[in-house]
């Protein structure tokens, strides 16, 4: 398998492909068993796990937009305990590396949660900092470099797993966010999370989404994601997990050229549940056609 041109390494993991299922769009991976073989999946990034169970947001949670979608799921999840007891064993049995996406409301909570997730079967944690910091009065961790660094340090202090900090694109300066989490010890950054957007139901003159605003994802945001990956990858030494609108192998090549070591497919999984396999096959054919011995050779190899 490691002779495959699309085998990839990331944070010490050996992956069959550089293409993962993005958090919140891939469940816990096993839901895709009807569509994908384990070896067609680079890694599973779980739905965001929080310390306690969360019901998520009321009302409409999904809206289609041009070349994309809005969601305001609101981090619905069974909580870390149920996850560890009832879900983790099933995922482990499936033999695909599992990266657990996690979220909390205070720096301390992030640390504690990281500790609870420092268990066998978890390959790494991806820390979602796009959520409001309840203790600091709703300031979003993901838009303030110092707050993001504090979360990074707290998580690092409580786990031996590699720590991937997932950055929000809703910022003026994505590079300073990435530099802050790198300096605080992050092992990698994931970018991008969703952009905040909105849709209005003109018939009823009200927001379409139950939460009024939601996160925009899909091909619509790809140009922004690609720009951020390119800006960040040049400035930091830790690897970048790129995502945002990826639908096909060409998109993956774009992200890797821009500097992403590995990538994740998000909303497009909904359209095409075999996406990860289709993309992997396309990437493999691309490597053979172009005489690329190992796909990660192209990472950052854009001539700008």
């Amino acid at each position, binding site marked *: 398998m490691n002779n495959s041109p699309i085998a990839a390494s990331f944070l010490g993991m050996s992956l069959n492909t550089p293409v993962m299922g993005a958090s*919140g*769009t*891939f*469940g816990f991976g096993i*839901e*895709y068993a*009807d*569509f994908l073989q384990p070896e067609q999946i680079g890694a599973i990034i779980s*739905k965001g796990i929080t310390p306690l169970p969360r*019901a*998520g947001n009321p009302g*409409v*949670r*999904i*809206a*289609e*937009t*041009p*070349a*994309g*979608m809005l*969601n305001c*799921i609101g981090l*619905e999840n069974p909580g870390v305990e149920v996850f560890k007891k009832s879900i983790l064993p099933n995922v482990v049995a499936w033999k695909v590396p599992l990266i657990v996406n996690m979220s909390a409301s205070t720096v301390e909570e992030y640390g504690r949660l990281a500790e609870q997730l420092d268990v066998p079967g978890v390959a790494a944690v991806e820390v979602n900092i796009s959520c409001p910091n309840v203790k600091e009065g709703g300031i979003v961790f993901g838009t303030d470099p110092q707050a993001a660094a504090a979360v990074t340090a707290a998580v690092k202090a409580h786990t031996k797993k590699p720590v991937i900090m997932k950055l929000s694109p809703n910022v003026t300066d994505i590079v300073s966010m990435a530099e802050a989490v790198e300096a605080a010890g992050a092992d990698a950054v994931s970018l991008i999370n969703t952009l905040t957007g909105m849709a209005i139901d003109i018939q009823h003159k009200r927001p379409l989404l139950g939460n009024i605003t939601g996160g925009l994802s*899909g*091909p619509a945001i790809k140009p922004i994601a690609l720009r951020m990956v390119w800006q960040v990858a040049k400035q930091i030494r830790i690897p970048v997990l790129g995502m945002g609108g990826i639908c096909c192998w060409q998109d993956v090549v774009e992200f890797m050229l821009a500097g992403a070591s590995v990538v994740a497919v998000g*909303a497009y*999984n*909904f*359209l*095409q*549940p075999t996406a990860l396999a289709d993309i992997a096959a396309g990437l493999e054919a691309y490597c053979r056609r172009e005489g690329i011995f190992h796909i990660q050779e192209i990472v950052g190899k854009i001539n700008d």
Partner: protein
Amino acid sequence: MPPRRYPGNLSIYIIQEAALFLRRPFGIVAAKNGHITIIYRIVGKGTEEMSRLTVGDVLSIEGPLGEGVFTVSDMPTLLAGGGVGLAPLIFLAAQSPEPIVLIAGKTAVETKCWVPFFAPYAKKIYMTTDDGSAGIKGMATAALDEIFSHHLLQRIAVCGPTPMMKSVAQAAAVKKISCEVSLEKRMACGIGVCLGCTGEYKNRDGRYKVCADGPVFAAEEVFA
């Protein structure tokens, strides 16, 4: 993906190339010899484009989705539907022993067009219209007293607007008739991973996914 299991209210997930980003869910009206029939109403961009399809156009179809389907049984059953909610009930009618059918609509035109689909299977068809232009005047529930008085029912299957499903379920509960409802929610994934279509079970702890655990539920599971 090959059809998986159960007859009943199966739904499928359709997408056309390029123009749309999300798939669209529809109930199956009939499935035979590799052919699937659906009935849909044009409400927006997706259905609008579907209406312009011609023979030879290719669609990507995923499904059937979900574990929750109408129970097929030998017991006397009422199938109550409103609007396009009637479509999946046709599939159920074909598998039920002489069901009673209740068609609820706004006008005579809208209501009567469903009759031929159910006529081959139904023991009796009732209708209600908002304006009284066909059948009984009023909501679906306006016909229930008459139906209950003429037929000894043991099951009710409802598919239609939420207020209709709620009121029929309430009437069923009073009569202690078991009632199943088919929920409609905006979906993204259709396979239980996005959590776009979830709700809280009303008769126990936990949350359901319309796409994966439904779309059909026992009424008491989802209505308080």
